[in-house]
Every structure is written in structure tokens, then in C-alpha cells.
């Protein structure tokens, strides 16, 4: 048997579609150049960076006590944050799905899940310092503790847990909703108590999902740069060590090798998560719940769970509120009244605030539509078409999810500062706004692609086939059928990309040049210097921008959304 003729015909049909071929070629070039190549150059650098091929650079960095310490630090934080986040996330998800809640508690939950999305990833570090630090409102003024040290291991763990648990909560909520209530009812019917049902039925069904949530958080935690930078103090993690190695010690080869080590850890975790746990999660929980769940009304369960989660939610919300308030106090920790607008004023008069917001805003605004369109094209190709390079495109765009921003940043420095393979070719883009935009795109591409793929999987393949059959070419099918059908996903991808870009810091901080002022970099700088009020003022405006973008999107989807009519079918 030989499939040669069929394969040859498929190839010919593909070639008869020049737009499609061009798109695929451009995509492959983009992915190779801006995701694979920077990582490859890190490998090359760390093996031959000092002239001869070998492990000498690795030997050198592993001999540094600060580096080995950073590895253990990172892993310790990652494990603890992963476990805490998935447990708290599970609790929240359980309460939301199983316990009848009033509207107030429901609102709290919704706010908590929303906050990390619209705020820069490190604002909690700021408020942690302002509430519990040496001059913290709670520690110093309420409890009269004058030497509380929030910096270090516990600071990072608490801040990261509070930042990442809403992600686990959202993931696990989806899974819990998909458990068929009749499974649990059957166990209840057989005489199992509520706790027994949870332990024997719900939890085992959730285990792969929990593992999944743990790993996702673990990867986020060890890739996190800004929180350890601000609240880590002398407790260095891999991401900050790499940053210091390149900006402080100017040891580019060493930083490259360290980046390779960090990348290996995240890739390993990512592989386990993607290929082992994700499949398992899907296998145990298939389909939708057949009918509504009997919610728990029992007061002995409902009251403590609701109170605990509400308090936790209120605490998180308070931490976020602390940021705009902090920006209004005349001097944080010493003088609270009268509230003042002077920090906001200074942002714009003294610290080039206008330029910072303009630069961040414009660059993100350019990156967002590119990201959204690119991820929809990739999703379309991956889900609806078959061609040889499809596996490559899907794998590489997903791979970007596992690459920590710091690693990518170092890769770009090594890969483009001297041009491609240090030859000078394409050197021109280094240090420009273009490379910042590309980084924004690459960083947001995986999330966009993921949501695009799941949106497209829900659309019957024959709808596009019918358009194709009616005489539309690929471009026409994509623009008149696919895109309109996933308009909502496209819009939310657009906003997500914008928000992620404008709040990004880890890769950007390594690549930004003085000609561009970015808000996140400014916030980081002021926080480093201890100018928390200014940092808060910057962060507040940033949150307002991102929140407005999200509101705008929701209003837009509500007004023009298509999915509602489509789903009714």
C-alpha cells in the first residue's frame, strides 16, 4: 500500500492556494526566528560561549554558590506556591460549584478571579510591603510591630499564592462543573456521607486536574520575575539571578547557561503537564453535566466554607485596593491625611509619565491585533486544515507557553544584539520598538492560540467545508466564515493580548532601551528604590487602563457578540 498519490494530490491542492502557502511559510519563519532561534542560540552560547565546545560554562555557573542556591530557592518556592494555590483554588471552586451562595459572596468570587487578569503581575508585592512591611499599616500601626520582615521566602510565597490561586480556581471550577452530578448522587444514595463522597468520588476525579493546576502554577511561579525582584530581598530565584547576571555582572554566556537550566526545568514540567496530565484530565471528565446539581444547603458545611472563602477573597481585594489608596497618601506609613493627588501629579510632571503611558500603550496596541490575528490563523490551520508542517506550528506556538520571559529576554539579547548568529544580519531590530512588539506577540501567542483552538473545535468542521465546497478559497473561508464565527474569541484574544502586553515585564526589562519608557519597568524601578507611592500611582493608572479595556470588550461582545445565537442551535 502506498499513500503517495493521495499525499501528492493533497500537496498539489495546497500549492494551488498561494495565500495559504504564503501564510504557512511566513508563520514558520516567524515562529522559527522569534521562538526557536533565540532558544537555540542560548544552547549554542552556553556550550561554545567561551570559544571551545564543552561544558565549561555550566561547570562555572554550577560552581557559583549563588546559582545553586537560586535553583533550590526557586524550586522550594515553586512547590509551595503550586500546592497552596491549587488547594485554595480547589476550595474556592468547590464552594462556587457546590454551595449555594448569595449574590454578595458570588460578587466577591468574581472580583477575585478578575483582579489578577487586569493588574500587573507584581502589584501584590507592593501592597504586601505597604501593609506588612517595616512601615506597613497593619504591622506598624495596628499591631505595633516595628521590625517585621516581609522580604524573602515567605513574602514571595504569599504574594505568588495570592496572585496565582485565582487561575487554579478558574481551571478547577470548569472541571468541577463537568462532573456529572449523578455520580455523586449515586454514592450518596448508597449511603456515603458528604465528606466520604468528596474523598471517594469528587477528589479522585479531580486529581489529574489538581495535578494540572499545580504544574501550571509551578511553572508560573518559577518563571515569575517581578515579585521576587520586589519582595525577594536577598532571596534570589533563578529569574532574578539571570537578570542580575546579565545586567550586573555582564556575564552573557553565564546568563545564557543559567537560562538554559531554567528552561529545562519549565520544559520538563510543561511536558508532564501537557502530555500526561492534560490527557488524563480529559479522560476522566468528559462531556457536560447532564443536569443541575443539588447545591449544599447544610449550614454546618455552608457557613464555615463561605465565611473562610469570603474572608480570603476580601483580603485579596483589600490588597489590590491598597494600591490606589497608597497612591493617595501624602507619605506612606507616616502621614495619611489629607489625601493627595501629588504623586499622580509627579508621575506626569517629574517622571515622564505621559511618555511612559504612551509608549506602553502604543506598543501594546500594535501588538494586540497582530497577536489576536496570528493566534486565530494558527488555530484555524491547526484545527481545520491538514498539511505537513501543522505539527511544527502547533508545537512551537505551544512551546512558547513554557518559556519563561527572562529566558526569552536573554535569548533575544544573545540572538539579535549582534544580528542573526552574531553576523550582523537583522541587527537593526535590536533596541527598537519592533523587537518589543515581537516580544509582546510571542509572549501572548500561546494563550490566544489556546483559546482560539478550543473555540474552533466547537464549530462543526463541515461549516467551513461547505463554504469551501461552494467555491470559497482559504482566505475567503477564513474571513467570511471562520473569523465571524469566533468573533468573541478573537475579541477576547485581542484584549487579553493587550492586557498581557501592557502589564508584561520579565522579558521586556532585559530588552528595553532608554528611548522607550514602559510603565511596568517604571513601576519596578520605583519599587526598587522604595518610592512606593509613585509605584502605586503608576500601577493605579495602569490598572484603570487595563480594566477599561476589559470592560470595553465585554460591552462590545454583549452588543455585537455572535456566539449566543450560534450556541442556541
Amino acid at each position: 500500500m502506498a499513500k503517495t498519490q493521495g499525499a501528492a494530490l493533497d500537496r498539489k491542492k495546497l500549492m494551488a492556494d498561494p495565500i495559504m502557502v504564503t501564510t504557512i511559510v511566513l508563520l514558520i519563519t516567524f515562529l522559527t526566528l522569534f521562538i526557536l532561534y533565540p532558544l537555540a542560540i542560548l544552547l549554542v552560547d552556553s556550550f561554545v560561549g567561551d570559544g571551545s565546545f564543552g561544558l565549561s560554562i555550566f561547570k562555572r555557573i554550577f560552581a557559583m554558590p549563588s546559582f545553586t542556591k537560586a535553583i533550590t530557592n526557586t524550586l522550594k518556592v515553586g512547590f509551595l506556591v503550586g500546592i497552596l494555590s491549587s488547594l485554595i483554588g480547589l476550595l474556592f471552586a468547590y464552594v462556587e460549584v457546590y454551595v449555594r451562595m448569595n449574590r454578595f459572596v458570588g460578587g466577591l468570587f468574581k472580583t477575585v478571579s478578575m483582579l489578577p487578569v487586569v493588574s500587573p503581575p507584581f502589584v501584590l508585592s507592593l501592597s504586601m510591603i505597604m501593609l506588612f512591611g517595616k512601615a506597613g499599616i497593619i504591622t506598624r500601626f495596628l499591631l505595633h510591630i516595628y521590625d517585621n520582615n516581609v522580604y524573602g521566602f515567605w513574602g514571595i510565597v504569599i504574594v505568588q499564592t495570592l496572585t496565582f490561586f485565582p487561575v487554579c480556581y478558574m481551571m478547577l471550577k470548569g472541571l468541577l462543573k463537568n462532573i456529572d452530578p449523578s455520580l455523586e448522587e449515586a454514592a450518596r444514595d448508597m449511603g456515603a456521607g458528604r465528606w466520604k463522597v468528596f474523598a471517594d468520588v469528587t477528589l479522585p476525579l479531580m486529581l489529574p486536574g489538581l495535578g494540572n493546576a499545580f504544574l501550571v502554577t509551578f511553572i508560573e511561579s518559577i518563571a515569575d520575575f517581578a515579585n521576587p525582584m520586589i519582595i525577594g530581598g536577598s532571596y534570589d530565584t533563578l529569574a532574578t539571578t539571570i537578570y542580575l547576571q546579565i545586567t550586573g555582572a555582564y556575564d552573557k554566556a553565564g546568563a545564557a547557561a543559567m537560562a538554559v537550566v531554567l528552561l529545562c526545568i519549565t520544559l520538563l514540567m510543561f511536558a508532564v503537564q501537557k502530555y500526561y496530565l492534560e490527557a488524563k484530565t480529559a479522560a476522566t471528565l468528559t462531556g457536560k453535566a447532564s443536569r443541575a446539581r443539588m447545591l449544599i444547603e447544610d449550614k454546618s458545611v455552608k457557613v464555615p466554607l463561605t465565611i473562610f472563602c469570603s474572608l480570603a477573597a476580601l483580603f485579596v481585594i483589600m490588597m489590590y485596593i491598597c494600591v490606589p489608596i497608597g497612591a493617595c497618601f501624602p507619605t506612606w506609613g507616616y502621614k495619611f491625611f489629607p489625601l493627595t493627588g501629588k504623586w499622580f501629579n509627579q508621575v506626569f510632571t517629574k517622571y515622564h509619565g505621559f511618555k511612559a503611558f504612551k509608549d506602553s500603550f502604543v506598543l501594546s496596541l500594535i501588538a494586540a491585533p497582530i497577536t489576536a490575528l496570528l493566534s486565530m490563523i494558527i488555530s484555524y490551520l491547526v484545527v481545520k486544515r491538514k498539511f505537513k508542517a501543522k505539527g511544527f506550528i502547533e508545537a512551537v506556538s505551544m512551546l512558547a507557553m513554557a518559556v519563561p520571559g527572562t529566558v526569552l529576554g536573554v535569548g533575544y539579547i544573545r540572538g539579535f544584539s549582534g544580528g542573526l548568529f552574531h553576523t550582523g544580519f537583522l541587527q537593526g531590530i535590536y533596541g527598537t520598538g519592533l523587537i518589543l512588539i515581537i516580544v509582546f506577540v510571542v509572549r501572548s501567542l500561546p494563550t490566544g492560540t489556546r483559546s482560539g483552538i478550543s473555540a474552533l473545535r466547537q464549530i462543526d468542521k463541515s461549516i467551513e467545508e461547505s463554504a469551501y465546497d461552494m467555491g470559497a478559497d482559504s482566505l475567503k473561508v477564513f474571513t467570511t466564515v471562520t473569523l465571524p464565527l469566533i468573533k468573541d474569541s478573537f475579541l477576547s484574544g485581542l484584549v487579553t493580548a493587550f492586557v498581557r502586553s501592557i502589564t508584561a515585564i520579565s522579558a521586556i526589562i532585559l530588552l528595553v532601551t532608554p528611548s522607550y519608557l514602559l510603565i511596568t519597568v517604571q513601576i519596578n524601578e520605583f519599587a526598587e528604590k522604595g518610592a512606593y507611592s509613585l509605584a502605586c500611582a503608576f500601577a493605579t493608572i495602569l490598572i484603570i487602563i487595563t480594566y477599561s479595556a476589559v470592560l470595553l470588550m465585554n460591552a462590545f461582545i454583549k452588543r455585537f457578540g455572535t456566539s449566543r445565537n450560534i450556541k442556541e442551535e
Partner: protein
Amino acid sequence: MEKIKKGVRLDHISKIYQDPKTGKEFYAVKDTSLTIEPGSFVTLLGPSGCGKTTTLRMIAGFESPDEGEIYLGDEPINELTPNKRDTAMVFQSYALLPHYNVFDNVAYGLKLRKVPKEEIKERVMKILDLVELTGMEGRMTNQLSGGQQQRVALARALVIEPSVLLFDEPLSNLDAKLRVTMRTEIRRIQQEVGITAIYVTHDQSEAMALSDNIIIMNKGVVAQMGTPQEIYYHPVNEFVADFIGEANFLKGKMTGRSGDLVTLDIEGSPLEVEGNDRMEAGNEYTLVLRPEAATLADKGGLPCKVVLSCFMGSYQNYHVMVGNTLVKLEEHNPKNKHIYAVGDNCSLVFDPKSVHVL
């Protein structure tokens, strides 16, 4: 809308798939040659996995054959993409564009062909009239019933005036009554337009009601092609006989011949039936007996014993044992006939001309 009708010809077509679990390759369609006459209505019929949908999708261009060539009229079309082929498909799930209303759905293909606006309007309205959807053109597709959606799908395929119309189990999502109405509609419209139609289904009554010719497929190969009557009365093998309608198989050795009539020994009793020239005494043959072609009597046929007797309204359903062979039969209009009970010994009677020797 007069244009030259085109037929379809498959010349030694094969399609190889890979089993996703074992990685083994197998023939989904194997060395299939077919000629479909211009203007005829042909059904591809077979159990699931027999290769009928794959064949249809190869004609539409969604799949590429691994061997052989497909012709539309006289033109080889292997290398053409679906959008360049002069075929139009009606999908199982209708596949209407959910963000368009009825008019825009039907007009989609014409717009792609850059037909002038006025003409689009005229042609769409004419087709909507043909499928009896006049007045619905402003509706969104999710405001239509299943049958109406199917009509839109049909109208959309017809309006671009393709040479060949392809149907991929279009009625399987409809309820039983609507299926019957719609298949009559499809046949009426096909006759009116005079278009070549290829129709995939696993429902034999649909195939019977619709087709000029039925192609029965099994395991990737064509088992038989012929008119509904040929296939029902003269199946080429047990698979075809069993797949189309109910069939009883009586096996027996040929003992003698007199002219057209041959004598077979069935479970120890001699039976005279109409045979064919190829039959030789001494060989084993299988007879196909349709349930409605036989009846029970006190004597005069093959001796049998009733094991099931069940009143079904329009007929009495019997299962009888002829020796060791189970025979099912339907006694129609049983009102004033003698009803045999379970355990009765009686006789299986049928016209020798109404059995078919395989």
C-alpha cells in the same frame, strides 16, 4: 438553467487510511470503478465504515484518492480543490453559516462567483420557491426547523447550478416522518432540475425510494450496483441480500434439473425452483427467500414447525423452523386467515419463481 449534464466516473479508485490506534494502514476504499450516468440519481448504500462517505468526499475533493482517477464528465478532476470543482454538497449537519440569514446563505456561492446583485436576488428567490421556503429569506438559520434548514442547505447547493449534487446522509438528523417527506421532496426537486445526484445513506428505504441506481458498498468495495428492483430480487451475495430488506437463506444440494427448473434438497425435502444455467447437480446452493414471499399452509410445501407467532397489525409475524434453518415470514392482511400457534406443525409454501438462487 439549462446546461450540459455531466456524469461521474471513478476509475480504479483507492483510499488508504491509517488506524490511529494501531498505526496500521488499511483500504477505506479499494479499487472501485463506477460510472454514474448524467442526470441519474445514484445512492451509495452500506453499513457504517464501508467507504461510502469517503468515496463521496473524494468526489467533492475533500479527500485525495491514493490510486486511480476521478472524472467529472470527461475531465479528470483529481488535482482540483473542492472550490474549483463543479460539485455542490449537502452535509449531514446542514452546515449552514450561522451568522447569515437564509437569503445570504443561499446567495453565498453566487456572491463568490461575482454574479451581479440583481441576478443573485432573482436566482435565490427562484430556488427558495423551488424548495418552498418563500417568505423565509430574512430568517436566521437557528429560527428554522430541521426540515427547513435542510431545504436551505439544498437550495444553497442547487443555486450555483453544479454539474453534480452530492448528499452526505442529509436526512439522518430528522425525525422519521419528516425523513419520508423530505426524501420525496429531494427526489421531486432532482427530477425537476434534472441534475446528476449522488446520495450517501445507510438507510435502505431511503435508497429504494430515491434512486435510479443503488450502489451497495461493503468493506471498501462495491458489492453490487443496480436498480432497486435488481438489487432486491437478484442480490449477488448473502451480504447484499441481508442488507437490503429481510432475507431468509435456505441451503441445499442440487439433485436434478428439468429445463429452467432445478430440484434442490432442502433439509431432507425436495424443492423445485427456477435456477440458472451455471448450476450443476451435486453442488450446494443458497436460496434467498423474502419474508413476504412465503406463507404457511397445512400441507403442500416444506414441512416446518412454528416457534414464534406474533400479531403486528398489518401482518402476522412467524418464525418457523425448517429442519435446522430458521425462516422468518410475514403474512400480510391476517384478519380473515388462519393463525398458526407456536408449536404447530405446518407447511412453508412459496412460488418457486419468487426465490433467488445465489
